[in-house]
């Protein structure tokens, strides 16, 4: 069930350059049952900035009715959000969208989780759930440079973790795809979230595997009503069949939609 609630800020901290970790508390956490969903946040109480901001849920704590997001303060909306203090309230709509299917990986199998930059956060809750299920997890995380790397230690606690930075200032120099190839990582299921070129490369490289990708698109409503976030389906690339990233996604099986 989608709920709208004023959730209270439990904590907010800058964990890397312009990267914030925000934990909120509210009843709607009861509705959060799957990894990979997102919430739509109103970052001001006024008409400016007007629209909500879609941010992935990266950690769910049912016992305390809390959930955590990790976001990059980039434009005006996220910059405003980063100024909010513990005790303040944030208007949250969610949970929204469809999750990564954890049942795609069976106990004893290996899942490869590949994240790029601000696409890394939703993989954290996913990884926790996979580990609980008895799935072996391998993480490959890509960032621009050392100053924006986050959560590599948290992921290491859950399983093997490799980090790539574009400038080589941390981990391996290059892209996530270089690590997967160079280390000859093998897996049964691949889950990924990050920039589209990265998702495209993974889709092309692992056509014979089970691959799930989480997409980003500019949104209006976030619930499937405004047709802002549509993409073509792969089997009808120029026709009128479509999927909405907000309500049919953001997670799609590779090959389902046109990237």
């Amino acid at each position, binding site marked *: 069930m989608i709920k709208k609630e004023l959730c209270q800020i439990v904590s907010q901290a800058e964990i890397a350059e312009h990267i914030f970790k925000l934990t909120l508390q509210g009843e709607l956490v009861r509705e959060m049952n799957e990894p990979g969903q997102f919430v739509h946040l109103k970052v001001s109480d006024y008409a400016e900035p007007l629209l909500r901001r879609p941010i992935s849920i990266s950690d769910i704590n049912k016992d305390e009715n809390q959930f955590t997001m990790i976001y990059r303060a980039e434009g005006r909306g996220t910059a405003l959000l980063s100024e909010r203090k513990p005790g303040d309230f944030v208007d949250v709509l969610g949970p929204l969208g469809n999750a990564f299917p954890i049942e795609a990986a069976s106990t004893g199998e290996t899942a490869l989780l590949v994240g790029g930059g601000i696409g890394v956060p939703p993989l954290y809750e996913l990884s926790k759930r996979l580990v609980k299920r008895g799935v072996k997890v391998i993480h490959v995380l890509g960032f621009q440079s050392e100053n924006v790397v986050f959560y590599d230690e948290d992921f290491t606690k859950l399983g093997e973790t490799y980090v790539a930075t574009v400038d080589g200032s941390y981990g391996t120099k290059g892209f996530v795809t270089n690590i997967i190839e160079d280390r000859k990582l093998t897996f049964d299921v691949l889950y990924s979230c990050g920039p589209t070129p990265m998702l495209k490369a993974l889709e092309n490289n692992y056509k014979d595997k089970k691959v799930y990708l989480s997409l980003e698109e500019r949104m209006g*409503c976030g619930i499937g009503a405004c047709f802002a976030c549509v993409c073509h389906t792969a089997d009808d690339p120029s026709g009128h069949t479509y999927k909405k990233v907000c309500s049919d996604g953001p997670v799609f099986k590779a090959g389902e939609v046109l990237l």
Partner: protein
Amino acid sequence: MKSLQISLPGLELKNPIMPASGCFGFGREFSQLFDLSLLGAIMIKATTFEPRFGNPTPRVAETTAGMLNAIGLQNPGLEKVMNEELPWLDQFDVPIIANVAGSQEEDYIAVAKDISKAPNVHALELNISCPNVKTGGIAFGTIPEVAKILTKKVKEVSEVPVYVKLSPNVTNIVEMARAVEDGGADGLTMINTLVGMRIDLKTGKPILANKTGGLSGPAIKPIAIRMIHEVSQHVSLPIIGMGGVQSAEDVIEYYYAGASAVAVGTANFVDPFVCPTIIEELPELVRSLGFEHISECTGRSWKNG
């Protein structure tokens, strides 16, 4: 609430608040959030004869107190709307206003003829003003004579009253309103979005794939208010006003300008519960302003007394 009940051509409404076309889909998503029967009416997404995919993404861009959209009239086409969407909406006690769009005259006529037969469609909203379709659309909405002829032809085939949705992208809105009144329109809805553009500072290129899009939200409210103020004094058709409505106070401002009902668009994205909230708050506001019925507010800005 007695103080909110209104009657307009084809429409007996329990209250004058309705979601605007394109901002509420066909109601399915919002039905998960609240009971659609609470609404005065629903203006469904534009329906064209053939299914349309619409424009490439990005289709939306935020602006100061507003947003640009270039959805491009994506919709499943007349047949699906008739066979799936409208029958589904029939479970709710709410009249439907069907937004009719096309790129040529024949399309409008074909859609109007069929869709006006659906039992829960109580009125048509003739969308001659969408800025996001390449052919036609906007031309129908900017040349008075063309709009008049189209209105007449649609009136001839429609089984329900026809409201014409005016474009603000004209030099003389009164002239357009008079033309569609002459064409036999039963009412007006106004305003559609204003054509605008945003450019990305990093790339130096327009943010929207379509380059231009329609501006909506609080930023356009003063323009809509001014246009309704003008038009309502020159034509005798009832006006359903829209543009940036977010609150019960905004609704009253539209009434004062000259509207007889009000639609809420972009605000549904900001707060999906905005329509039921406004409906709940209106009676008390109407009473506190000293009115027994909301209709008493219509045109107060220019009426004597």
